[in-house]
């Protein structure tokens, strides 16, 4: 699958399709981290676009104005995103569901406000030009391959997190925090760690996003973009990685390929979110699982237990002798 995606630059019809694929990869880098927060831990963050904006501006300022190497600026953007995630998470993750969602939304609005206000640093409403990466990643195809590599790395990482006891603990926090705490899951620390991780991926995604767009203004990072990331995960399905991945790809590509949907824009995402929440709250990924199970009913596996008579006899003999 990854190999097939890696050859995309050679069979894609035009440059625009490569750009679209690169955009999906950038979004996915953020959504993969956010997925651990929303899909696994159940913390409904609708304001991650704020962290994306911070990463993008950090990269634009460091690599553009101060002419740092893009690679170091990329690392710095990730770290700044992580630090901002920590600062946002420390107070807000203690709050219950609706309060937390409002706090993240407010964070996104605050970031938008500050990028406009600090005109000297961020260029204000005019925006900033963003440098690209050095060769061989300076062409659209090369940059796409770089994005694909980072996206694959992060997917692999989140998949590992989800698969091991860590991920189980996150799901336990989502389903019942009190029960999770009672069996020894450090609830707040886990939430915070995952949130900081999502901040790092959002910062990295922001840097790559800025470089991909090559020019950023505060209008690039509207609140609705944060809602879009959120919708991708909810529609894809909870505690799944493939679901949100497919959700991100489809939702990014669909309005670009079907022109009437682009005009409706966020209305379309709203309708989709409402339909999914009301009809299949577990996400569309779950729907496929159910359909598959209907189509191919699995036979109940039969287990035949054979008593290990020799060992049993030996044990009895040993007990009798003792």
């Amino acid at each position, binding site marked *: 699958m990854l190999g097939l995606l890696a050859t995309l630059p050679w069979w894609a019809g035009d440059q625009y399709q490569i750009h679209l694929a690169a955009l999906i990869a950038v979004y996915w880098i953020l959504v993969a981290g956010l997925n651990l927060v929303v899909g696994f831990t159940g913390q409904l963050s609708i304001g991650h676009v704020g962290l994306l904006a911070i990463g993008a501006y950090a990269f634009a300022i460091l690599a553009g104005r101060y002419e740092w190497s893009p690679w170091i600026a990329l690392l710095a953007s990730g770290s700044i995103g992580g630090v901002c995630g920590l600062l946002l998470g420390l107070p807000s993750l203690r709050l219950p569901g609706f309060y937390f969602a409002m706090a993240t*939304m407010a964070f996104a609005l605050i970031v938008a406000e500050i990028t406009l*206000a600090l005109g000297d640093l961020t260029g204000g409403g005019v925006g900033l030009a963003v440098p690209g990466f050095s060769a061989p990643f300076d062409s659209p195809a090369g940059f796409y391959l770089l994005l694909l590599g980072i996206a694959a790395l992060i997917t692999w990482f989140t998949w590992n997190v989800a698969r091991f006891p860590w991920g189980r603990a996150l799901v336990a926090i989502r389903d019942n925090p009190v029960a999770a705490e009672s069996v020894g899951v450090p609830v707040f620390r886990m939430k915070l760690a995952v949130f900081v991780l999502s901040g790092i991926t959002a910062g990295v995604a922001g840097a790559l996003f800025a470089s991909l767009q090559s020019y950023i203004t505060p209008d690039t990072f509207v609140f609705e973009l944060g809602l879009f990331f959120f919708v991708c995960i*909810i529609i894809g399905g909870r505690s799944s990685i493939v679901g949100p991945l497919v959700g991100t790809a489809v939702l990014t590509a669909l309005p670009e390929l079907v022109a009437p949907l682009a005009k409706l824009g966020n209305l379309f995402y709203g309708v989709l979110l409402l339909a999914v929440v009301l009809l299949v709250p577990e996400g569309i990924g779950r729907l496929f699982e159910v359909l598959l199970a209907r189509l191919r009913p699995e036979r109940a596996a039969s287990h035949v237990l054979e008593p290990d008579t020799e060992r049993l006899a030996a044990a009895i003999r040993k007990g009798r002798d003792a």
Partner: protein
Amino acid sequence: MLGVIVTGLAIGALYAATALAYNVMYSTSKVLSVTTGHLAMLGGVFGAWFVTALGWPPLLALPAALVVGAFAGWLTDVIAIRRVLKRSDEHLWLLSTLALATIVQQGVGLWWGTEPKPFPRLLPQDFSSGIADQKYWLPIATTVLMALALELFYRRTLYGKLFIAMSEDTFAARARGIETDRIRSTSFAIAGALGALAGFAAGQLTFAFFALGLTLTLNGFIALAVGGLGSNVGALVGGAALGLLNTISANLIGGEYQNTVSVGALMLILLLKPEGIFGARNVRPV
């Protein structure tokens, strides 16, 4: 300085009215709906449309806007709350009301346009009256009347008592024969009408603007959380304090940091007194 205070109180009145609408819905359903601010936005936009586009007199446009708001509130319950409350997952109502709020906001944006449009004058008054202008005292007076009417409603009418019974314990209320589903729908319709009334009264201050809903949802919620969830006095005090804080800070350090200041105040209050100034301390559910 007086001008700053009056403006702050007028904006604060709008926040307080939104917080009151939150409270009405919260009392019967324990749901904080993301659509609350959008109800006020609908009141403003439809009020402006009725008067400027259709040429109705304000006395006719006001009840019409209230009907639109009440209908939107009722629809919120039917679409986003009723089915969702039957499941036990507590996050779902947040998602469904968020989706509905997005639909309403973007729908209005597509239909009405994304530019703020002026709201018509409601009373004959020339523009030279300064801080005695109707755009300041109309929202303040409306919100105070609204709070008084709600207080009377809760204390003196049977329906109000049903609301209180449901806010204490929905299951017990249902066991005593109260039709909880219908009461909840009613409360959402009432909240919708109240929100629309506030949006209509404050229309000259805010203009008829499609993105107002999200701002109000946030600021009304901040007013509510500061004042104390479920308390109407808290909603009034929180709204007024937030409005004053907004305009005074805008006057001192510039208007660019409005959200930063209000959210900072919210975080401070929540750290010091998590249940809000007038809120009841909830026992932690296990």
